[in-house]
């Protein structure tokens, strides 16, 4: 059996939600996730629109048989890898420490021991 999760009641969580630590955590998360999401979706849509509506530009040769379309396509791969790595670093430094600080202040180390102990 999965042991019963630590229950969080609305009143307790409301207190946490109003705390300064939690507000900072939420700000760190949202200030990264929201603008970066908007950014990469726009960057992807730009690429899709260029593919549809700017064939001359996309067909221009860069080197050998490699054209702008291929370079931009490969850049989508690169930016995807880069954003993923950037977020991993950011989350390690800015999100995980404050999330676990809040968990510990609440008197519970939530994950590993409980799940592993089964």
């Amino acid at each position: 059996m999965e042991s019963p999760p630590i229950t969080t009641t609305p009143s307790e969580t409301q207190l946490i939600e109003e705390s300064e630590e939690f507000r900072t955590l939420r700000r760190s998360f949202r200030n990264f996730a929201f603008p970066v999401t908007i950014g990469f979706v726009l960057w992807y849509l730009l690429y899709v629109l260029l593919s549809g509506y700017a064939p001359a530009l996309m067909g221009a040769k860069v080197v050998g048989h490699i054209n702008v379309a291929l370079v931009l396509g490969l850049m989508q791969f690169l930016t995807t890898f880069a954003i993923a790595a950037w977020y991993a670093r950011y989350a390690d430094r800015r999100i995980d420490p404050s999330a676990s600080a809040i968990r510990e202040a609440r008197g519970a180390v939530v994950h590993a021991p409980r799940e592993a102990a089964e």
Partner: protein
Amino acid sequence: MNLIASSATDHRGLTMTLFGVFVLATLGITIWAGRQTKDAADFYAGGRAFSGFQNGLAISGDYMSAASFLGIAGAIALFGYDGFLYSIGFLVAWLVALLLVAEPLRNSGRYTMADVLAFRMRQRPVRTAAGISTIVVSIFYLLAQMVGAGSLVALLLGVSGDAAKRWTIVAVGALMVLYVAIGGMKGTTWVQIVKAVLLIAGTALMTVLVLAKYHFNLSTLLGAAADASGKANAFLEPGLKYGVTGTSKLDFLSLGLALVLGTAGLPHILVRFYTVPTAKAARKSVLWAIGIIGGFYLMTLALGFGAAALVGPKAIKAANAAGNTAAPQLAEQLGGGPGTTGGAVLLAVISAVAFATILAVVAGLTLASSASFAHDLYANVIRRGKVSEREEVHVAKWAAAGIGAVAIVLSLFADKLNAAALVALAFAVAASANLPTLLYSLFWKRFTTTGAVSSVYAGLTSSVALVIFSPVVSGGKNSLFPHSDFQWFPLENPGLVSIPVGFLAGWVGTVLSRRQADPAKYAELEVRSLTGLGAH
């Protein structure tokens, strides 16, 4: 069909043997996993004991379907650059999952997508809506895979006729039910891991062989592909498939939108985040998945252009008009060509990998939909939560059998449907019905039950209805009903319209709600989703 069929008989025995080994090995794993499956958390979430890396492999296994492996390689081989456009959408989509969905979902849900959607809402209406949309998305996706499996077997084994296709569909259906009912999430996850490793190894081998032929010079490979295509430089530029008319350009935009927003709303992908112990492990699994899937799609570039250059579009089209056999044909060519032992061996290996791919993906889909049926519709809606976990798991196993039966029957009738269109439709429904509701639930304090129910149903009905009135179903040469014409929606992919409809309906439903959102419940969801407090 000739090229493949003529040598198909040479390698049929070998392909069947390799495939038999895969089936036996995975069934062995499944039985082993079944013995360790004791409670609901084991069955639905693999005991939440997988590591980030293992789950990353399993996610890749779930995601790299036959449509990716065979479909994209074929599309690149025939349409050049336009085939590559698919892979980019499929990959970039993972950033939505990474940044907005994976960690909050892991922290606040338990077994299904509906756990998160219904967290702060009235349970029954939201679970009903989310359960229905989970099952609809999964069935469309399942149909695509099974229909694909049927035609693939006919082609690769050189057996023609409807009987062989039907038996393949029945066998695939029976196996996927066994994997799920016996092995649960633990068994299914290991099947995905084995399949992902096989697929990556097979693709990497072919990529190296292709590149070696061109002295590892991408430009030379592209030049050879452009020459062999007969379309010269246009083959390397966007537009061969989607650039013909104003409508097809819009269709491409619509597809692009559905691809990039659909992934993070696919229920069989979302449940994978429950198989790891923490949100951090969920993040790591997406990071691994992005690396593995990205690497795989880069390799399909070599496969597709390699098939164009070495096999040639004429031979590919002769074997399968949609290009679905380009990758196996390339394998045969790389092994030494038709009629050689090397060619037969490599063809057999790649064919077996393709079967493994289909089997693993259908198992993942069956698990996600039967879990949603048992956990959301049966336990929480029909029995209003008054049901033991044991009974719930029991129902889930029967639901797997039921969904397997439905999928088999539908696939037998739907074998004329285009597999790629079905997959794109599944992505469009996921992006229109599931993603808006998920994002609003997690990040919009005022979002209400009425808003959630509206966005799921509006996204679901608008995307399905627009497809019914699109050229996919009627009014065109390649339609499901080519002789009827009730088509009025010009695009094949509904995303451009139905995704905004889903988002808009959630907003309108919320604004017009009579009941306000409960700020205390939102505080609970927000604290849990960001900190992991109280996570299961």
